[in-house]
């Protein structure tokens, strides 16, 4: 496996770890441009008629993503952090192509994925795989591991029948499982082993880009560390690029080159990992960091972020964070702050930056 991708491993070493949003000589591996996603929209003709006649209320819509742009360079590991319901999983599913955005563009190495033909998109799509959160629901319970791993490569002609056993064995070894387990069903594995099978299944089609959606959240802490180490090892062996979605700052810190913080459908801050943990600029990021558990043996009072995440059905006007922000002032209530660079590679969307 690893011998087949020397070019990528070499690219990893020269890849800029901290790629600025623009100015890179080569196009980013995956770029999401001004993505919006609205759920529950688009009434059909009958509903439109009913609404026009005043019999029906317009259906409630959720703006899950409100103009999100994110670009990920080759070899980079980007952490995407936010509370439940902030839209980070939706962004991940749009990144891999499971959801279609309501508007906005998806560019793979600079080419618009929506402009490709279906066959081309399917081929390119193999390069983008996802590691799922639930190690139980993400494996088909009726298939043996051998079939789980070999099905897609067989369908796409990556392997032939005779080489299948070797291919599956190599994949299992790569994720730290015993190749003798190829004949088992998913329910015969522990949670951590299933997570590894899920990773092996994604690797089976030789992807370049992995979106990990809370990939370790369902695992025990000790197993989490092992799986995170596996991700790091695979990154070095295969030159993989990751979008690592998590609500857990500790997990992201361990792994990421760059971290993007999401709040209610918008990215509010993005910076190199070290920078965001040492000098968080956005009040929300500061609040998140203050909440993160530490080993310090002092009495801690939890008060950093007040209140609940507002309903995405009726997001507050202006800066979405202003009802909970300790520094909010008049302007925050009606004007949406734009992402602005406050240090090289460090962008933040807060009116305080320009105040």
């Amino acid at each position: 496996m690893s011998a087949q991708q020397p070019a990528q491993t070499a690219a990893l070493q020269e890849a800029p770890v901290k790629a600025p949003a623009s100015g890179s000589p080569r196009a980013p591996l995956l770029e999401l441009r001004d993505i919006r996603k609205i759920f529950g929209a688009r009434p059909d003709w009958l509903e439109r008629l009913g609404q026009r006649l005043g019999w029906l209320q317009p259906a409630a819509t959720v703006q899950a993503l409100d103009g999100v742009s994110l670009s990920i360079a080759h070899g980079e590991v980007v952490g995407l952090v936010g509370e439940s319901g902030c839209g980070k999983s939706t962004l991940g599913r749009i990144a891999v192509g499971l959801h279609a955005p309501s508007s906005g563009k998806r560019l793979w190495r600079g080419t618009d994925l929506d402009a490709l033909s279906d066959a081309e998109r399917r081929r390119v799509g193999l390069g983008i795989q996802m590691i799922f959160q639930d190690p139980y629901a993400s494996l088909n319970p009726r298939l043996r591991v051998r079939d789980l791993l070999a099905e897609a490569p067989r369908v796409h002609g990556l392997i032939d029948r005779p080489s299948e056993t070797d291919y599956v064995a190599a994949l299992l070894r790569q994720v730290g499982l015993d190749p003798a387990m190829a004949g088992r069903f998913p329910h015969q594995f522990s949670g951590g082993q299933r997570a590894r099978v899920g990773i092996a299944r994604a690797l089976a089609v030789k992807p370049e880009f992995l979106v990990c959606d809370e990939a370790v959240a369902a695992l025990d802490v000790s197993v989490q560390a092992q799986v995170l180490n596996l991700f790091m090892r695979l990154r070095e062996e295969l030159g993989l690029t990751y979008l690592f979605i998590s609500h857990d700052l500790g997990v992201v810190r361990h792994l990421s080159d760059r971290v993007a913080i999401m709040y209610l459908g918008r990215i509010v801050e993005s910076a190199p990992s070290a920078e965001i943990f040492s000098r968080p600029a956005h009040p929300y990021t500061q609040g998140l960091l203050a909440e993160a558990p530490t080993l310090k043996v002092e009495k801690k009072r939890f008060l950093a972020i007040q209140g609940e995440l507002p309903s995405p059905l009726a997001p507050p006007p202006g800066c979405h964070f202003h009802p909970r922000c300790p520094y909010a002032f008049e302007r925050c209530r009606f004007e949406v702050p734009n992402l602005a660079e406050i240090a090289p590679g460090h962008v933040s969307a807060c009116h305080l930056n320009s105040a």
Partner: protein
Amino acid sequence: MSETSPRPAASPADSEVERPLRRVVRAYAESRVALFGLALLLAIVLAALLAPWLAPQNPYDLMQLDMLDGRLPPGSASGDGQLTYLLGTDEQGRDMLSAILYGLRISVGVGVVATLLALAIGMALGLAAGYFGGRFDAVLMRIADIQLSFPSILVAMILLALFGQGIDKIVIALVAAQWAYYARTTRSAALVEGRKEYIEAARLLGLSTARILFRHLLPNCLPPLIVVAALQVAAAIALEATLSFLGLGLPVTEPSLGLLIANGFQYLYSGRYWISVFPGVALLLLILAINLVADQLRDVLNPRLQSQ
């Protein structure tokens, strides 16, 4: 658990343990009543299949019937002394045992064929409705709702009144009366399973829609379908018997169980119970056996019990 060998060397048997099918068989065998039901069902089906060799007489061959032997009580000898009518004869001199064996053959055959057809149709429609959703789903489910709001006997009677008699017409009527159960069951299972992450993973792996539907989605929707199908076989057999009893089903020359019961019905008050009662008992045993098996299958395939 280290990175390379997560488990101490597994014994060869360990990699074979607990295939889903084996688990189902073991769990099924835990109930004696269910095993009895299965044995009874197998015996009845076997008797029905082997009817031409088991039956003392071919009840459909009018040449073999002797009107003079009509309405003899159980245990009587035939007029020519060659046969003993163990279960008596009907008014045409037909040996009841033979008629019941042949009738079972028709009942089981019609029930199974109609169920398989309805299952195939309902499953395909329900799977598509659950996976694709949208307007197709809405229209299909409203049709199913409307049909299920009529008693299935009424639907079948209307169709038979339109088509006329015959075994193929009966099958069509049964399929039309029952496809909706399978469509609904499959759809609800497909809705649950289709939202699981393994379906998303299959889509990301670039597998074709047909492959996702039939290799990934359908096998995981089967357990509730098996239970419904098992119960509906009994319902189909009962429905066929009812239709035949009402004279809407099969021709009089090839009586199924329902028609045999109907034929003997008029003699019940004159003490000739055997013409109606024995076919009735056969029908009862058949449906009882199917229901015992289906009940245990439902318990065994219950997803909430599966994790144990």
